[in-house]
């Protein structure tokens, strides 16, 4: 674990280069927590607009180089204002801060999040159909079915992993009923390992196909994380959920790498390795439980 304060540069130019990725990144709360210990917030703290003065527009368009060193240090002494600053610069459509965000996990994770939802939406497409060129009876019937399907899609989008919902048929961990069947803990984990093997049933031919497949695998992780696993003890379930979160993060990284231009072969190879390892971990745990 790194202590951000221990890395804080003395030189004002270096301080800007160090602080900007924190502002446009996801570890700002860690820095704020550390600064809050040294400089606890007070009710008399100046507002962000007071700290930035007439440089507010320049900070949004050109970054923190617009500020003097005392202004930068004042921001550190009022850690709450760092959150305000983050909200200011990310809330504007600033190419400068967009570029800074690209250097951090923020950009990659935002892209991965969008892909994940779109993959889920697209995965449901077979449920929608064209009712034209049908008789009035069939039109009525198909319209009813389409409405029901649309409702199902809406429910799936909003509460995709609610306990009593029946997820749409899918592969791997997205298969209907994979979590619900009564079995021993060992059988349950072996079944999950077998489900993950289905990753290897299809070799995506393009980055977009691989992106969809990764997003589907990732959705399966969420199924496991949020599922009930009635056959497992609390300790076994905690182990499984903890592992699933690690696997989910690794799959997110691969999706982000793919979207950032990494080659199909490289991402496929890394993803295959992740799935092989997780299947092995599940089988080892199953053996351990006996």
């Amino acid at each position, binding site marked *: *674990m790194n*202590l951000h*304060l*221990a890395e*804080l540069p*003395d030189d004002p130019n270096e301080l800007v280069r160090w602080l900007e990725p924190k502002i*446009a990144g*996801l570890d*700002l*709360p*860690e820095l*704020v*927590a*550390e*600064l*809050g*210990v*040294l*400089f*606890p*917030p007070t009710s008399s703290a100046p507002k962000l607009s007071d700290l930035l003065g007439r440089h*507010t*527009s320049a900070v*949004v368009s050109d970054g923190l180089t617009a500020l003097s*060193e*005392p202004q*930068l*240090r004042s921001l*550190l*002494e009022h*850690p*709450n204002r760092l*959150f305000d600053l*983050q*909200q200011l610069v*990310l*809330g*504007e*459509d600033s190419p400068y801060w*967009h570029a800074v965000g690209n250097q951090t996990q*923020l*950009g990659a*994770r*935002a892209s*991965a*999040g*969008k892909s*994940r*939802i*779109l993959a889920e*939406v697209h995965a449901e497409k077979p449920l929608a159909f064209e009712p034209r060129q049908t008789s009035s009876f069939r039109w009525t019937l198909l319209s009813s079915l389409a409405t029901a399907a649309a409702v199902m899609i*809406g429910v799936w*989008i*909003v509460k*995709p992993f609610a306990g009593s919902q029946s997820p749409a048929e899918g592969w791997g961990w997205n298969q209907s009923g994979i979590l619900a069947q009564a079995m021993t803990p060992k059988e349950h984990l072996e079944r999950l390992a077998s489900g993950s093997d289905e990753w290897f049933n299809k070799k995506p031919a393009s980055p977009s196909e691989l992106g969809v497949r990764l997003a589907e695998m990732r959705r399966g992780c*969420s199924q496991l*994380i*949020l599922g009930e696993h009635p056959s497992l003890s609390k300790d076994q379930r905690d182990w499984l959920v903890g592992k699933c979160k690690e696997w989910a*993060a690794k799959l*997110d990284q691969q999706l982000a790498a793919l979207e950032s231009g990494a080659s199909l072969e490289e991402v496929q190879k890394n993803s295959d390795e992740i799935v092989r390892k997780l299947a092995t971990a599940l089988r080892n745990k199953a053996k351990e439980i006996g």
Partner: protein
Amino acid sequence: MAAMEPSITTPESSSPVLSNETWGELYERFGRYVLAILRRYVSPVDLDDVAHDFWCHVREKFTDSFKSGDVKAWIATSASRKGLDWAKRKRPERLSEDRDVARGPRGGVLEGLIHTEEERRRATALSNCMESLSADERSLLAERIAGKKSAQIAAARGVTPASEAKEFFNVKSRLQDCVGRAME
């Protein structure tokens, strides 16, 4: 400053669900903004799932919930509310007051600043490790972070700048080691 907002128009249809195009436009414009807001309240490991839930909610509810006005303000308010709800549900059993910097007598003011267990542990570890420093060392750390120059501090302490710099380096190293051990 005039904010350049996307002109979000909701389709005239019976379905309240946003079209992919409109939803994608909102996401492109505010995806990072929302992640940053949520991260304030949500641990890194759960962030993607909470953000996913938020954007599914936007897709479903935006047409009904947003009538007119400032899209950015609506997004910010909704994301903050989502994050706070998550933080309240996730809030674990607290450490005893004397060990919890976000609650104890010395650090209660951090209550509104820190929301996740990870940050709470980090702040508590740092606070406890600061206790192991002398008053002079704590003062040195705060002064240097606040921007006071090495030469100024050295002169005030009657030491050479080189000695002051060495002491500052040692203080940071000790804190790093201490916090690292506490967080293991």
